[in-house]
């Protein structure tokens, strides 16, 4: 792998591929750009489609699943709000699975106050709409977590989310020690 691809991003690429996903529908996010680069450089069999809005991405993913694919949807946590009607009135009631990879905002290592309220609500929203969610413990744990979440989603026909904490996806300033 190219040395400049962060371990967590290489893990997302490897994990979604291992879960059998060959189509990623996404709304861009700064950290996720590393994943997109990894897919472009190393996974020629994975197609990516950009959507104008997160709920549209989930609609496209639902169509991909109906056609026999195992779709991944990638978004920033701020876009979960935009996704809710698609999730609650299409993917959940029709039991249409998708591997959902969410780049977190608003958690530890955030600088933008406008990102905090939704970031803090993500886990509770997922619980409320019965979408299981898992956080990888470390950058090295991302590949296994994404693969597991995806395999579980497609085997059980329930969308599942992997939440990528910002402390993994964005380099934090070093803390001087003495």
């Amino acid at each position, binding site marked *: 792998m190219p040395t400049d691809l962060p371990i967590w991003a290489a893990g997302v690429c490897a994990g979604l591929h291992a879960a059998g996903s060959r*189509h990623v*529908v996404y709304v861009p996010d700064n950290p996720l750009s590393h994943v997109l680069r990894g897919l472009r450089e190393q996974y020629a069999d994975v*197609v990516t*489609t*950009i*959507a*104008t*809005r997160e*709920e*549209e991405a*989930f*609609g*496209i*993913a*639902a*169509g*991909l*699943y*109906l*056609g*026999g*694919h195992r*779709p991944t949807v990638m978004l920033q946590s701020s876009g979960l709000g935009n996704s809710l*009607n*698609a999730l*609650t*009135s*299409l993917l959940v*009631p*029709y*039991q*249409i699975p998708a591997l959902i990879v969410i780049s977190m905002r608003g958690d530890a290592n955030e600088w933008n106050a406008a990102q905090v309220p939704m970031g803090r609500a993500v886990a509770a929203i997922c619980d409320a709409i019965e979408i299981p969610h898992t956080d990888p413990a470390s950058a090295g744990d991302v590949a296994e977590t994404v693969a597991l979440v995806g395999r579980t989603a*497609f085997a059980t*026909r329930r969308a599942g989310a992997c939440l990528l904490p910002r402390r993994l996806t964005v380099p934090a300033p070093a803390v001087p020690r003495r």
Partner: protein
Amino acid sequence: MTALSRLDATRRIAAAFEGEPIVASLGHPAYDLFATGDRDTYFYTWGSMGLASSIGLGLAMAKPDRRVVVLDGDGSLLMNLGSLATIGWVKPANLVVVVIDNRLYGTTGGQETATAHGADLEGAARALGINRCITVSALDDLDGALARAREYPGPWVVVARVDETPPTLKPPQDCVFIKQRFMRAIGSPEGGTQGGPA
């Protein structure tokens, strides 16, 4: 020129695309599609307003060798105009979006939509990169447009200006049943419905 009722328009659309998957937007478009004669190849949505064309796009990408038809509504498409930009970018040749434009939110009581006040969905589709677009408001013109959409590669947007008529039937309401039946009918049966080695 005689007015075109939604049910008559839907009958022509169902006949033109017999055997092909049709994704129907929630409410009256789906109700009238069911009323023309239920088929396993119909995916009726019961929610996710605005997403019928997005579902159709995903399906068209997954099944490039099959024509995929979307039966959308004007109010629904207005809720997800970005979908036209994505379709205009991806340009799936096998996608036909038929917009049933009654200029009303028919399912919610008949409130006017922006198309009653000049919004032009064909123009929007064209501006967002979809080249094969047509608006029709008579039965013969609709037949001609559907024939062209079958003959020439898309993506197509066919806007059918219709009159609202009260629907009389509702499609099946079990979402998982709709999904499993549809996936089986279009040749991508869901793994969980198939059984296999222990």
